[in-house]
């Protein structure tokens, strides 16, 4: 058993990382793109809210980009960014848009008209209103989107393995094959899944902390948009 555990966590030297190191790498490669995606999605979503006609085309474009397989993305990007983490992270950031933009748009749009009117009537300017009223109220929807984006980003990083050891925990999959060590495959799958679940749980916690104003009883119902995003 302990031998198995030893094998399980014994990383081949070509990965140049310990298991913990791979986990850290995996998180970085998965989370940075989502963070970047969020930064990008906020202004895009704001534009879509401002100019309603923009929303359908933006949705269309993000959906088509989303349909492009990650590997193809990687290969094309190698031309520009080389065989680096960046190559893996750019598509992931792009993918996160397909979830985050609608999450933010729907979240901000779901702010009740009365609340907006009240804010305007109190003399809130558009900017202040956006940051102090609309955005905070959209937080649950945004975090719901972040959960989906993050989980799928964590899952997708593995594919980076195909472009030469850029898949963090995914690299284990290849090494498992060339060294005939199937336990590494298990390690990769389980660790990745656990990471995803853990980060997801953390985001739920963040949501709870950030939104003491949400009726806890209806938390399940408020999840509705979140779950719908899961569908994307």
């Amino acid at each position: 058993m302990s031998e198995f555990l030893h094998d399980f966590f014994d990383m081949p030297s070509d990965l140049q990382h310990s298991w913990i190191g791979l986990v850290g790498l995996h998180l970085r490669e998965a989370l940075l793109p989502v963070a970047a995606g969020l930064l990008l999605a906020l202004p895009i979503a704001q534009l879509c809210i401002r100019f309603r006609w923009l929303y359908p085309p933006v949705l269309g474009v993000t959906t088509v980009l989303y349909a492009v397989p990650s590997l193809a993305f990687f290969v094309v990007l190698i031309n520009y960014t080389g065989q680096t983490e960046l190559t893996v992270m750019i598509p992931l950031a792009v993918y996160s848009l397909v979830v985050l933009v609608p999450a933010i748009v729907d979240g901000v749009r779901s702010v009740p008209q009365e609340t907006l009117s009240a804010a305007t009537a109190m003399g809130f300017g558009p900017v202040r209103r956006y940051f102090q009223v609309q955005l905070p109220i959209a937080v649950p929807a945004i975090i719901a989107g972040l959960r989906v984006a993050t989980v799928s980003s964590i899952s997708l990083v593995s594919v980076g393995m195909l472009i030469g050891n850029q898949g963090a925990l995914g690299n284990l999959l290849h090494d498992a094959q060339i060294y005939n060590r199937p336990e590494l495959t298990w390690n990769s799958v389980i660790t990745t899944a656990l990471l995803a679940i853990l980060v997801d749980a953390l985001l739920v916690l963040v949501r709870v902390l950030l939104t003491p104003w949400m009726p806890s009883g209806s938390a399940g119902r408020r999840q509705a948009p979140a779950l719908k995003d899961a569908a994307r």
Partner: protein
Amino acid sequence: SSGGTSEDPLKGGGAESGTVVVGSNNFAESILLADIYGEALKAKGIKVTYKPNIGSRETTYGLMKNGAITLLPEYNGSLLAYLDAKAKPKTVEETTTAINGKLDPKLELLKPSAAQNKDSVTLNAETAKKYKLTSDSSIGELKDVAKDLVFGGSPEFQTRHQGLVGLKSVYGLEFKSFKSLDAGGPLTQAALKKNTVQAADLFTTDPTIAREKFVVLKDPENLFGFQNVQPLVRKGELSKEGAAALDAVSAKLDTKALLQLDAQVQLEKKDPLDVAKAWLKSAGLV
């Protein structure tokens, strides 16, 4: 179809001066050889970083050219085939000369080792039996039955001269279909074993050949050429001392040793780096 190679925009990860970046292809033996080279250099006090497991030659050669890696274990015949599909050298020296004629001016080959590891056309036991072929049969004898066989190999094998292209032009083989697997790795081994493919490209140093009683066909036309393990380096980026160390490695490395090392990694599941270090030590190279 030349779109891919007409421009070669590989870049990134450029080596810090004074540091040798040792790259490798994405199969176990290449990683092992890279580790041997790297550790040998380290023993001489040279700073080494590894960039293992990159991909196919198509990728690694580009990375050598643009300097992202400085040193790569190569197989001379394959490299030549990649650089000049038509060359048909008769000796190792001829091979080296031919390569040097085509090699990018920024790159050079060091001394070749005696260790050989060729691509091959290998049949599984079942197929060999069915068509009454043995390890003494030649590839050419497949000519009539190829249309019934599915061939397995790495994706790049499909378009290489030392691959499907050459098998057709040199031996006139046209297979029923080609199944993209991996570079002589576990996918290929498994596919051959399960008869998903009947013939496949395996490396001759593959320890599973013996274990699974696969049959390697002879290559009288020398399609797969000479396949001596030979370090490819960027000119002027490796010190004399370093080059000497690698030459010393090549002098000691022969096919038997390589087979044994491969078995340690792939069958005994030892880490290639450990195997490399141990061998260097036992060979008195460190």
